[in-house]
């Protein structure tokens, strides 16, 4: 018997709640069979979830570390593993291992700073853990601004939590936008990059930016116009992963592995790496 610890061997997780968040994103609540959180994590870290026989994939842990009872994963239906998960019911077992990657520097670089979160679509999932962490420890941070956009109102992830909790927090301002006009929407209409520019934020903020590459590109251009430096902007990457521990050779960007050196990068760090993500 090989008694060494083996990082590739997961533990069993049980899905205890499934919430349909948007037409193609569900949020899954996961605990161990004895009802506990599978492991502790820091904001921005990820976990490998698998369904034996279907596959294993990396997902950001969307719940905050301050939640000590369970973990949540907001997952968009877009491939084999995610399609299978989307038909899973409460009580379904999956496997889980982690946590993986470096978290956002919530207790160091972010401490005492005004924070500006910018997300598009499902990219709110990795940022939600950070947002709820800094909301929980609000006295450690300055003002919190959140700009979030999606294709339509229905595509806004965690809409109820945003309206019922985030928007009601003192010191937290939420700016929502959707791509096109729709009947039951009286909020802002337009793409995230333009909205950020229109809002014209002061540069006394640390930015946490996540979204599709095209959104990041244009938002960054807008931020630069407003006077932000790349050293002020953090993002989190996602690439194909198999091992999650920097050995299978798949998720590298230059000499960095997204699974263990990332997924969180500061944009000036990314600038020194090949544009292969």
């Amino acid at each position, binding site marked *: 018997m090989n008694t*060494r610890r*083996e*990082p*590739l061997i997961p533990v069993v997780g049980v899905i205890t709640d499934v919430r349909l968040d948007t037409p193609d994103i569900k949020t899954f609540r996961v605990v161990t069979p004895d009802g506990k959180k599978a492991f502790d994590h820091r904001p921005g870290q990820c976990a490998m979830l698998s369904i*034996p026989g279907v596959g294993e994939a990396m997902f950001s842990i969307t719940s905050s570390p301050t939640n000590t009872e369970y973990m949540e994963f907001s997952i968009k239906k877009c491939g084999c593993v995610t399609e299978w998960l989307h038909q899973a*019911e409460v009580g379904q077992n999956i496997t889980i291992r982690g946590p993986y990657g470096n978290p956002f520097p919530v207790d160091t670089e972010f401490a005492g700073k005004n924070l500006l979160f910018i997300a598009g679509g499902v990219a709110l999932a990795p940022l939600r853990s950070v947002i709820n962490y800094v909301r929980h420890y609000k006295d450690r941070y300055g003002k919190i601004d959140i700009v979030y956009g999606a294709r339509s109102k229905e595509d806004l992830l965690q809409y109820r939590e945003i309206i019922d909790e985030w928007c009601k927090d003192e010191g937290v301002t939420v700016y929502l936008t959707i791509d096109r006009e729709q009947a039951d929407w009286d909020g802002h209409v337009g793409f995230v990059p333009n909205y950020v520019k229109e809002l014209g934020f002061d540069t006394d903020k640390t930015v946490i930016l996540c979204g599709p590459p095209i959104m990041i590109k244009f938002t960054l251009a807008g931020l630069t116009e407003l006077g932000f430096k790349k050293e002020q902007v953090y993002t989190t990457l996602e690439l194909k992963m198999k091992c999650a521990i920097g050995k*299978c050779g798949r998720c590298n960007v230059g000499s960095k592995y997204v699974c263990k050196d990332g997924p969180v990068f500061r944009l000036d760090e990314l600038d*020194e790496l090949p544009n292969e993500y």
Partner: protein
Amino acid sequence: MLKCSYDALNGIFAKIAENAKLYLPADKDGKTDYTKWAEGVEWSNALNTARSPKDFFFPQVEDLMKFKVEGKSIAIDDIREESEDFVVFGVRACDVRSFDILDRVFLIEPYDSYYASRREHGVIISCACTRPTETCFCKTFGIDCTNPGGDITVWRCEDALYWQANTEKGEKLLGTLGLESADESAVNAQKEQTARIMEKLPLAKLTTEGFGGGKTMELFNKPEWKSLSEACLGCGTCTFVCPTCQCYDVKDFNTGNEIIRYRCWDSCMYSDFTKMAHGNNRLSQVERFRQRFMHKLVYYPENNEGIFGCVGCGRCLAKCPISMNIVKVMKTIGGSAE
């Protein structure tokens, strides 16, 4: 230094095989590969094996764990077993270095328990080269083929074999073989002779200058990657014969009764290597080709104190169907001398 006659070798192999499985290069069907020793199996005289010895620690396919699935429930079965003791005899200097390169991947935290178990139970007996050939360039990476290392080094000089232990594991094994002591003169003479051959090899002047950590952006953006990779078929042969390529895939197989999660070698040269549901960050063969060589010559050294991820064994030079290889890359991208 200890010594035995070539004729005594079979008896020594038998003695080693009493306590551990013994593998050595043997000729079969026109090629040489590591073969389990048994009475009648003859040690090959070939320079090196077709397949690298990385299989001993990192097999091409291995089962990692099993799952039993019943309804909604899953049970995970840890099927890992402690490796049996084994000895690999006749490993060349290039391949001995490849184990160090793999160690720096699999034995850094969090370490790979499958690899670690085999590594702990394996004893490497290396054999010094006497006839390096035109595809050899181990010296480019600071490897001395006359001093191959491993747990025990063996030099074959005409009718005698000279043995020297390099590690505790090696000493323990060598102590059980009952060999007579000998002076080093024959070995030293052989080393000088081999060094003279090395100097005359066509790749003797190949250097790593121009490569190494910190050169990422300069080399990544070279336009020459396009012409170098144009004919690449993406067959992955170079990665499979390579003793240091360690990329792997993890897959599940449903036997109908249980699910086996296994790992198998993969190749960064394959088009689906980085493909995921939302896209692929290396869409063209240029990007995949560049990744393989940048990894060996820039990214790996950057993460490993300047040690390169190539050992100059020459297998890819001999096997690539379009005759593209790391030597051509080093000359074109890094500007190494002919």
